[in-house]
């Protein structure tokens, strides 16, 4: 397979629309290995909502065995009630309109939720159940608001667009402002993480800390685990900022179009440069530039020693960033690219299917258009499910192992099971785990936004570089990969 590097902006121009059938010709197999419903499910868990699934019980059994459970356990999202209509064989032949009607009424009476997120899975989607008709018929009878999410597994290509649809679905909870909250912003696009005190800090905590220091109040943090009230008062803020643009951008666009609230152009602020840029945009809007500059100076002074030490170790080297997980190959990799670039490294993103640059609509395009972050990506016709090892990248691109200063991988980074040659183990190559759920550090945000995040990342780099000098004492992980 021919490997070459292309910039994100170039790829964006040459790949087809991920929703078109051309997609299958040029990038066959562009679909997620998770079910669309599985991805959607935990994001539907806003506070005091019940997810009613029009489909078989097994769909919920499936998500409870993985994503829904671990997002709850490790990110603090409360248990999500997810009753199903438990569709059976006769339902898929005769239809289950009456059953759905009864189910909605029962959910309203038994759970008394504020919102019912009605999720449609394959069985109901394929037979085209008249869901909207049923919901519209029941509108006056049911006290809870009903939001419909059409998320069958058969619609699992171009996952980024599915996310946009989900975020758009939540726009129905927004309301026109009753008042204006001066000097306030919303932080949009918090997904998986929960803006609530807990053992570990999340992105929104760090962003809120920084904003509060310059006198800006956070009005609403949307959308994971947000309350209905968070949605309803969101339009009272003066300005919208982003953490993850995938989830945030649709909400921001809606609020601009309907309530005239402007939004920023910068997202996922990882690293000093990116965080400063993000803060300056807020400073400019509120005309508090001096305060923001003072904050940046103060915060940087606080982490300067560790940041500079890390920088000295890795400047001029390559950071191999494994997009890894098919569902967020671009989101994470672009964000990590920003902080690696800030430390003076040359980020190379791989295991990021090129079509994904367009398939996740806002992440890469915002980065290269509005932030000037246009990273190199390994370009080939590879698609999901066929991950390259770091060695394949090094050999395919003609790089030298000694020029790689950092390898960032996900849950299942491939080990090169050959001790005769260097492998990407923590014992011989500086390696940082980049998967979001396994990167917690006390008093620092897990995804490393802001100055606290930058400090934790730099500290991680220093430890990783030092550990890589260990050489001939591989970790258990590497031994399990087939080593001695």
């Amino acid at each position, binding site marked *: 397979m021919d490997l070459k590097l292309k910039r994100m902006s170039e790829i964006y121009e040459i790949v087809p629309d991920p929703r078109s059938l051309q997609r299958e010709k040029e990038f066959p197999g562009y*679909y997620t*290995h*998770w079910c669309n419903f599985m991805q959607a499910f935990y994001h539907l868990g806003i506070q005091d909502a019940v997810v009613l699934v029009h489909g078989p019980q097994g769909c919920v059994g499936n998500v409870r065995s993985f994503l829904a459970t671990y997002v709850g356990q490790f990110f603090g999202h409360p248990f999500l009630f997810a009753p199903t209509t438990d569709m059976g*064989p006769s339902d898929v032949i005769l239809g289950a309109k009456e*059953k759905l009607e009864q189910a909605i009424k029962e959910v309203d009476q*038994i759970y008394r939720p504020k919102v019912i997120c009605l999720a449609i899975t394959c069985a109901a989607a394929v037979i085209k159940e008249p869901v909207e008709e049923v919901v519209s018929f029941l509108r006056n009878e049911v006290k809870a608001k009903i939001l419909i999410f059409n998320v069958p597994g058969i619609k*699992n290509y171009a996952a980024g667009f599915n996310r946009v649809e989900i975020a758009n679905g939540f726009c129905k909870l927004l309301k026109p402002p009753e008042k204006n909250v001066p000097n306030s912003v919303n932080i949009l696009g918090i997904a998986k993480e929960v803006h609530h005190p807990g053992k570990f800090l999340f992105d929104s905590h760090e962003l809120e800390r920084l904003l509060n220091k310059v006198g800006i109040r956070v009005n609403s943090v949307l959308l994971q685990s947000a309350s209905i009230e968070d949605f309803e008062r969101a339009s009272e803020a003066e300005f919208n900022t982003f953490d993850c643009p995938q989830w945030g951008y649709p909400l921001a666009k809606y609020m601009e179009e309907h309530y005239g609230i402007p939004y920023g152009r910068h997202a996922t602020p990882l690293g000093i440069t990116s965080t400063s840029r993000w803060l300056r945009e807020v400073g400019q809007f509120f005309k508090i530039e001096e305060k923001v500059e003072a904050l940046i100076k103060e915060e940087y002074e606080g982490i300067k020693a560790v940041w500079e030490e890390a920088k000295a170790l890795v400047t001029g080297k390559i950071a191999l960033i494994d997009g890894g997980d098919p569902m967020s190959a671009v989101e994470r990799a672009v964000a990590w690219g920003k902080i690696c670039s800030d430390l003076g490294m040359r980020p190379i993103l791989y295991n990021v299917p090129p079509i994904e640059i367009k398939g996740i609509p806002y992440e890469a395009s915002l980065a290269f258009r509005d932030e000037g972050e246009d990273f190199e990506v390994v370009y080939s016709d590879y698609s999901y499910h066929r991950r390259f090892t770091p060695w394949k990248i090094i050999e395919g691109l003609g790089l030298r192992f000694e020029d790689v200063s950092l390898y960032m991988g996900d849950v299942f980074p491939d080990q090169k099971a050959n001790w005769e040659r260097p492998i990407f183990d923590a014992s011989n190559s500086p390696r940082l785990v980049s998967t979001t759920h396994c990167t917690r550090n006390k008093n620092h945000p897990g995804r490393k936004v802001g100055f606290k995040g930058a400090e934790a990342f730099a500290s991680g780099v220093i430890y990783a570089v030092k550990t890589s000098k260990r050489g001939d004492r591989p970790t258990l992980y590497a031994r399990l990969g087939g080593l001695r």
Partner: protein
Amino acid sequence: MKETVLRDSAQQSALAGAVLAISGIKKASIIIHASSGCGWTGRWMRSEHPLNYVPLIATSLLENELIFGGKEKLRRTIDWVMEHWKPQLLFILTGDSGSLINDPVEAIAFEREKSSKIPILCLDVPYFKGLAAVGVDDVYRSLLERFARKDVPKKKDTINLIAPYLSGSSNWPFDLEEVVRLLQGIGLSINCILTSNTSLEELSMFYAAETDLYLTYEVFPQLATLEDEKEISRFGLDLPLPIGVYNTEEWLFGIASKFGKEEEAKCLIENEKKHLAPLRFLYNATWLQTWLSNQSAAVIGPASWAASFSRFLYFDLNVYPKVIALYGDSDDPIEYSKNILKDVQGYLNPIVLENPLYIEVAQAIKEAEVEFSIGQTQEKSLVEGIGVSHLSLAGLYSILGTYNFIPFPSMGFKGVLYLLTMLGRLVEETFHEPQRWQELRFRGREE
């Protein structure tokens, strides 16, 4: 609560059940003809069998294939699997989307089986067909119809073990080893396990056994028909699972009496007691049992496990299982469970919930004011969210958060050591006071 059309639990689909059962067959491969997400379901289920790797791939049907058909994709996938994985047996499972478009799966399989000479079994196991036991039953039927020899002579004192993964214990792979050891200890031979590391040769001898010993209360109507035809008796459905001392004795004696091996069972039990002997002189063991005694618990899980575990808590440890939530893929497992809970009912009056919605479980736990609960990791955030600590011992072996790497049983006499160790952690979690520690911790003058 009145009758409802709703269902909310952690129960898995027929497709998941089918993969679970097939993954116990040596040298098998699986194609799932459905969307790629169904492939992900399958991969979790496959992980249940830590010692047997069954490759699995989904044809990953997308919207356009639902209209134009996915048969070419299926053909290509079969050819790829035959070339790269070289299975001895291939299963093609249809999930929801594959089932609803009615692709000519069997015709394609027939054509490919002819050219490859490898048996291909097609099963229609969409989620909407039912829960896991339905898919498991389909697999058992298809395996036995195809591979079990009908002319094998019966072997005395020989049994088959049925559906160990549906016992409900998240430690089932190691429990199965212990069950085999105990059965061999009373002089029984294991003929075939449906299914765990099972070869096609073992399957061919299936009908040589006198009895099928069920390690679950789930029922398999198609298997039952075959059992009846071949005069294999079903056994174990009226016995508790061997969790704890009391249950293990009842289970062993129950089996022994069927085979006239009561004396062997007595000897074995005497011998097995040695595993527990050190506890007599271990102050920690008495400390733990004292902690547990008189406390109230909720037990939530698959019916077979939850009923047996409740008996263990009550009869062995004097813990009162005030709430027992039983989940069954049909009504039968619920009824079998209630039957073995009858002698607990004689002393306590626990609230027994039958396939409850999770909201009903939460309400019952709040009302019963239990100190802790034992169940599946899936409901941990529900139970702890209402302020009750939770220990995950039920469900499946590989579900995320069921970190379970020590090859030691939770069943039999030996299993008591495992269970006490786990309950020790639960006692710490339940009765330690970290919040007060944080609030009242030492603070220096400057703090």
